[in-house]
């Protein structure tokens, strides 16, 4: 089954209003999903289509645009050997989105990293604190408005 047909099959099963659009680039499909429905979509993909392996969870900062933070999930289906990318936006200030730790335990550290690096709040995360940087670090370094060399360069060095 080629990628287009497979995507259509998935789309037909997903709730219509949940999926905003579908992108395809270099043979990889991205589903852009409403942030309120992200848990439903991921659960459906996991339970019905066998995307049981959450490869990666990350975020992208589109600074001038609004909503600013895009959260990206990469899922892998072991049975079909297929990759799918699900994207959504974290809205609000601070940006908030529901946590998927209930679906995959592996999301725990991924979400903590996203919180650490972007300041995205994952609603329902059991233990949301900084993971790579220390408590008390000023700012979220992977945001586009954070300088590479750090804000407190003079003070810290």
């Amino acid at each position: 089954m080629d990628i287009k047909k497979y995507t259509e099959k998935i789309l037909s099963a997903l709730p219509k209003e949940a999926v905003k659009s579908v992108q395809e680039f270099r043979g990889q499909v991205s589903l852009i999903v409403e942030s309120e429905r992200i848990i439903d979509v991921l659960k459906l993909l996991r339970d019905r289509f066998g995307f049981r392996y959450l490869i990666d969870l990350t975020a992208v900062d589109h600074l001038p645009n609004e909503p600013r933070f895009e959260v990206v999930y990469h899922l892998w289906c072991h049975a079909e050997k297929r990759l799918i990318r699900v994207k959504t936006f974290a809205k609000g200030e601070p940006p908030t989105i529901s946590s998927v730790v209930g679906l995959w335990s592996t999301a725990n550290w991924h979400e903590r990293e996203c919180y650490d690096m972007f300041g995205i709040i994952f609603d329902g995360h059991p233990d949301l604190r900084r993971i790579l940087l220390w408590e008390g670090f000023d700012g979220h370094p992977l945001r586009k408005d954070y300088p590479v060399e750090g804000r407190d360069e003079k003070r810290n060095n």
Partner: protein
Amino acid sequence: MGIEQSGGILVTTLEKVVNWARKYSVWPLTFGLACCAIEMICTAAARFDIARFGMEAYRPSPRQADMMIVAGTVTKKMLPAVLRLYEQMVDPKWVMVMGSCATSGGVFRSYAVVQGIDKYLPVDVYVPGCPPTPDALLYGVTKIHEKIMQDKWLTKKYEHIKFPEKVKS
């Protein structure tokens, strides 16, 4: 006015003997930070064999170590631990900086990396490279040996330091 006894043959001989002993018994701290630690382990392994210099006794406890090889990137999160380890070591102690990250931050000029550990620690020998080869590390070891042999810890004179004649109240 300081220690100004020039010391006889006894003192200088003792100094030489102790320096000789220290030279051949530099026990490094088991302490690796990043990529350079791998090359440090390779130096300890069969081919380069740092044991020839009596240095295979890597001590896990800083109390018993003589030399700290800062092998790898020091991040700002790790810096307090590094400093603490240095303070826990007992005198006499030496610090060898291995690799460009620890020397100057190297390629990682970012918000998380300390741009050179020499801002915080008194460094004896720098070994450049990213990572330095084991040969380079061994060369650094011989430089440490030279430094130890020239260490006038017993006969050092402090005449050049001028103390005030009278401290005014």
